[in-house]
């Protein structure tokens, strides 16, 4: 799977483990994981843009768009946001995972 610079903070394996426990396999698993991935990106981008001052948004988006996997983006964010962005991303990712894992549990027959 193609990498994005904040992938290491998503720890998506936690969701995959729940999929495994519930025997969600094949194409269905792939498609459901893609939906989870979309939600993650929306929430993480929201977190980043909320903490990054508006003046740096375009530059960040340009860099992100040109090299989504570039780990130096994290350094860029930490420098310009003035807070520990990794911590904020981790927090947002955990919240999304908790919510979505609840949905998986709720979908049990």
């Amino acid at each position, binding site marked *: *799977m*193609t*990498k*994005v610079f904040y992938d290491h903070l998503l720890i998506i394996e936690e969701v995959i483990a729940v999929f495994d*426990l*519930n*025997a*969600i396999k094949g194409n*269905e698993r792939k*498609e*459901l994981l893609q*939906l*989870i*991935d*979309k*939600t993650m*990106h*929306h*929430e993480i*981008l*929201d977190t980043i*843009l*909320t903490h990054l001052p508006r003046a740096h*948004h*375009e*530059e960040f*988006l*340009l*860099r*992100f*768009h*040109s*090299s*989504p*996997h*570039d*780990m*130096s983006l994290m350094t860029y964010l930490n420098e310009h946001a003035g807070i520990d962005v990794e911590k904020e991303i981790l927090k947002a990712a955990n919240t*999304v995972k908790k*919510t*979505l894992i609840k*949905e*998986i549990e*709720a*979908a*049990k*027959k």
Partner: protein
Amino acid sequence: MGSIKTSKLRAALERHAAISESKLGKRHPHAASWFAKRGIRPGDIRLHAARLASAGALAGAMLMGTPFISKGASFGTDKIANAPLDSIQNLFSDNLKSLLPSSVHPLNPEIEDQISRIIEEFWGIRASAKLDGEHLNTTYGYMGAEQHLPHFPGDSVSQHDAYQQSGITPGKGAWGYFANSKNELTDDLVQKEKYYVAVQTLYLPDWETRLPYLREWYKYRKVMVINPTNGKTVVAVVADAGPANWTGKSFGASPEIMAYLDMKDGAQRGPAILFFVDDKDNAIPLGPVERRNK
């Protein structure tokens, strides 16, 4: 443990994806519109990353690894050297377009540095926005068509071997004639006229205070001119000043350059990147860049 009703789960996950996308759009509408202009949705960034990673293979079917410059990434310069020119130009253009802002305006230094890295990877030429501490007011702007410049006093357009329909300026360029007479005209000077650009030295903030130095520094300064829409690239020299700001253009270029860069449409102008070439040994020839410099 009960089994999962996947249709129910799918509906719930789709709802979350839609809600989060809508929330992002409401909280950061400028970002949503930024993505929309580039034809991608924020949630599909991984798909976009995958496309970037495969762009090289699609464009040239021979470029290894990621086509986009990043720390530690490389195109594999030997692969570039052997790729078809149009594939290289397309890939070069894709890389530039991914960095350039949606409207034509001055670039920030980080973007300029990234463009320098891309130029060096593709063409093996060191070109930068700033050289010896000098920087034009913009390195990304509209470039317009200029006429031929007279080589020497009394020169006429009929003595220029191509694009005679472009005409010739009635007077000399901002740096004078290329030669004092026809007898003194060398092949090197002919090449300089063929591949010349006009830059807005007149609007440099220190032009008047540092005139003697800057005038010499800019005379026949070697530059790289790129049409980012098609990746076509030319090495040229500065041989005239202009255009005026009211034209909306930042650079002018000889008929040969405009033709090669495919900027010869009705508007006679197009967006261009203009960087200084670091070529103290004068080893980079003027004209189209179509192979990687070794």
